[in-house]
């Protein structure tokens, strides 16, 4: 992870912490006080929130920005001549530009607002189905014939996917008579890249993959996937839900400028990407589909109605260009404002995603160490730290995840239990469910140590031996 390339923020505001280098422990302590919820107690213990992979907490700056918008400028966008409508429109389009800069998109128009990651993937698959059904919107670029899926074509996904980036593709394949293939997960939790070229056949139209697994924490070799897709004219679709909160992202082809975070990211050159605000320290109910502008221009809408039309007669309708074409109905403006505030917070108050990524490497190392030391606990996913983020999904011998989560909760530690909406990868790794700790930059080494200690109490609590030195409760 290099942070040495951070460019000056073009957002007007100077970034006080913009110097390269990981966040320091003292800075993290200070930043934690920006998150009101991190100060609360659970039971009578201070909360250790290790469930940011499910949803992240929000800094006061986000909460305030949303409240201020609602108290002052709340209105529908792109309609009405009044002052509030104009302020709301400016705020909404400003948020679009902000998101675009943060993820290294070539233009604001590459960002379609959706209600989240799940909605973004569904929007894309529905639009692709409509295109396959003969609806057209614009010329399909010769560089991406993969946009048009015919019976017998292939859609390739991976076995590591969250259901959000799996089920919509399964459904699309079934609807279009296409074949679904997948890149398998190896026993160590990584994707079997050796099979990539064989799986991505000439007839492959779509290669959909997660950037980071929400179960194993493994980071996908995006370049290898994009290369494999583009070699056969397929579109590369990336689920960035779990990477956007942890890594500098540059989704476009060019080294992005104008944003301290995007500038530090390696240009990925994906065709589409999906991500959501609520894992990025922003509000729930908003996310985005990133798409190359020339591809979005060729896609028919998924949903139709108000806000996405040029003109409507009783006989027919002409649609607005992207992104408005994909944003039917009244939009979540306060949420967009909150998301933009979260990105400002990450760039300006924290100093950019590269600083976060470097700090989190320390957290991840500590997390892997903590779980490795507990008898009867098996880590699902890579135990080595290369290309791996701070997620530890655990199988605890003799203890069901629900029971483990309960014991940890009694110690003030919030983890997630279950299959985390990724049943296939759990099955592949030999379990039905797991206990998952997932980190964010506001976590501390001390919290991870507390987690390690509480984890060591879990099996003894249920009368299982093998945990050296642990007591019964």
């Amino acid at each position, binding site marked *: 992870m290099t942070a040495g390339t951070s460019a000056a923020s073009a957002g007007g505001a100077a970034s006080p912490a913009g110097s390269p280098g990981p966040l320091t422990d003292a800075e993290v302590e200070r930043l934690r006080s920006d998150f009101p919820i991190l100060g609360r107690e659970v039971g009578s213990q201070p909360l250790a929130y290790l469930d940011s992979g499910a949803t992240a907490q929000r800094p006061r700056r986000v909460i305030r920005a949303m409240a201020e918008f609602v108290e002052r400028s709340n209105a529908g966008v792109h309609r009405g001549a009044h002052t509030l409508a104009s302020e709301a429109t400016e705020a909404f389009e400003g948020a679009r530009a902000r998101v675009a800069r943060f993820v290294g998109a070539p233009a604001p128009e590459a960002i379609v607002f959706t209600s989240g990651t799940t909605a973004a993937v569904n929007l894309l698959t529905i639009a692709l189905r409509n295109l396959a059904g003969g609806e057209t919107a614009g010329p399909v670029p010769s560089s991406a014939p993969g946009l048009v899926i015919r019976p017998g074509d292939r859609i390739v996904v991976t076995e590591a996917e969250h259901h959000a980036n799996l089920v919509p593709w399964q459904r699309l394949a079934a609807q279009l008579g296409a074949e679904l293939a997948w890149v398998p997960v190896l026993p160590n939790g990584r994707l079997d890249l050796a099979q990539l070229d064989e799986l991505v056949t000439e007839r492959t139209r779509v290669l959909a993959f997660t950037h980071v697994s929400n179960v194993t924490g493994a980071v996908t070799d995006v370049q290898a996937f994009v290369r494999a897709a583009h070699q056969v004219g397929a579109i590369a679709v990336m689920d960035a839900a779990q990477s956007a909160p942890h890594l500098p992202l540059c989704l476009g082809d060019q080294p992005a400028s104008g944003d301290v975070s995007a500038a530090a990211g390696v240009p990925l050159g994906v065709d589409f990407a999906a991500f959501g605000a609520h894992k990025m320290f922003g509000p729930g109910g908003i996310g985005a589909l990133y798409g190359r502008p020339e591809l979005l221009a060729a896609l028919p809408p998924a949903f139709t109605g108000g806000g996405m039309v040029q003109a409507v007669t009783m006989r027919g309708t002409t649609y607005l260009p992207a992104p408005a074409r994909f944003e039917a109905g009244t939009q979540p403006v306060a949420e967009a404002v909150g998301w933009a505030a979260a990105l400002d917070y990450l760039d300006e108050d924290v100093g950019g995603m590269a600083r976060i990524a470097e700090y989190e490497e320390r957290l991840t190392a500590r997390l892997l160490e903590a779980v490795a030391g507990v008898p009867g606990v098996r880590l699902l996913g890579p135990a080595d730290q290369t290309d791996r983020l701070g997620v530890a999904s655990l199988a605890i011998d003799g203890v069901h995840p*629900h029971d483990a989560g*309960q014991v940890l909760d009694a110690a003030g530690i919030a983890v997630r239990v279950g299959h985390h909406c990724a049943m296939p990868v759990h099955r592949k790794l030999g379990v039905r469910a797991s206990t998952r700790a997932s980190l964010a930059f506001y976590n501390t080494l001390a919290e991870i140590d507390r987690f390690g200690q509480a984890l060591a109490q879990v099996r003894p609590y*249920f009368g299982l031996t093998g945990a050296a030195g642990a007591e019964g*409760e």
Partner: protein
Amino acid sequence: MGALDQLYQQLILEHSKAPHGKPLKADYGGESFQVNTTCGDQVRLHVTLGPGDVLEDVSWEGSGCSISQASLSVMTDLVRGKTLEEAATLSADFTELMHTRGQGFDDDAAADALGDAMAFEGVSQFPMRVKCALLGWMALKDAAAKAKAGDHTPAQIPEGWE
């Protein structure tokens, strides 16, 4: 760990380690297969009805958390030999107990009838765990209804389970 120990009563821990009602008997009058989709718990449960709609036998196989396994075990002890009507009353009382949110259960007659199942009262303080405790009771209700209706078809198993 006050609330935690209230949840994991000794009786619950013991039943979860050596549950009653296993293994599953091959013959049945009614079969049910239930899952808890949030955490992947599952149970397949068989009942056989005798004369007078008496639950002659209840057996099951499944996997899940200690609450779901112990609840199945205690339920099996409780309803074996009871009539369908008595079992339905127990089921309703247990469901009510689960929804008391730790505020106490003042139906003394029902508490007496529930017996060991009262050990699950602490579960009501943990809304996320109520489903676990009710998994077996849902299966019982379903299997009993099928047995009563003479419906011996095997339970539908959603894809990806088992």
